[in-house]
């Protein structure tokens, strides 16, 4: 399932996938795979992404 919340939070911060990837220490393709729902990140990476986007885990990764 696509993670549209992550995509919109990134866009709101005016960050490209490349920018977010650099902040989190991963490749651009990994951020792309998370947004497309092709990869489930570990909790450590989820936290790194949340910190980079000033969001909580619930806001970005909790499915309703």
């Amino acid at each position: 399932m696509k993670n549209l919340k992550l995509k919109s939070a990134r866009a709101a911060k005016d960050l490209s996938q490349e920018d977010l990837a650099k902040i989190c220490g991963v490749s651009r393709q990994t951020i792309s795979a998370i947004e497309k729902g092709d990869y489930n990140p570990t909790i450590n990476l989820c936290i790194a992404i949340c910190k980079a986007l000033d969001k909580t885990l619930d806001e970005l990764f909790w499915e309703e």
Partner: protein
Amino acid sequence: MLAITRMGSVAIGILVGLVLAVILLKAANQNHKMKTEYDERQKIIRGKAYQIAWYVMVIYEVLMMVLHIGEISLPVSEYVLHFGGVLVSAIVLAVYCIWKDVYWGLNSNRRRYSIIFLATGLLNAIPVYFSAKEGTLFANGETGPQLVNLMVLIMLVVLGITLIAKDAADRNAGREG
């Protein structure tokens, strides 16, 4: 004085080539670290790639064993057959990694890698060219040691084509896909 036979020099050549390739490729990393760094997703997919490559090598070696038991001889030296197995599994590993976006590490410098690829291709193409010109690549149903260079050249071409095809596929799908 120690006399080095023709095949002895081939063996030394292969070893020196392998050591040089490892040193050069590692030195090509952006932060000059010997170890290429990968993120968590890349490590998982690369693990799968190594698994597939390992199975390919096992199947290849079993096939070679069957040929040997069946006393079916191929017009190439035995070391070339084993080198073929190494190259085939290396190609499988690299192509899988390229297609799954895990070929380049986080600290890989693609430009430096490309230069090394081209230089390696050139170094292997020169002996193949002269061997083909002199007609010693395949002569009297036997193969010359330059066949190893030809095999490395084929591997580089396959990797080059895969990298270009993957880049084109990514561009069509849109970079931020």
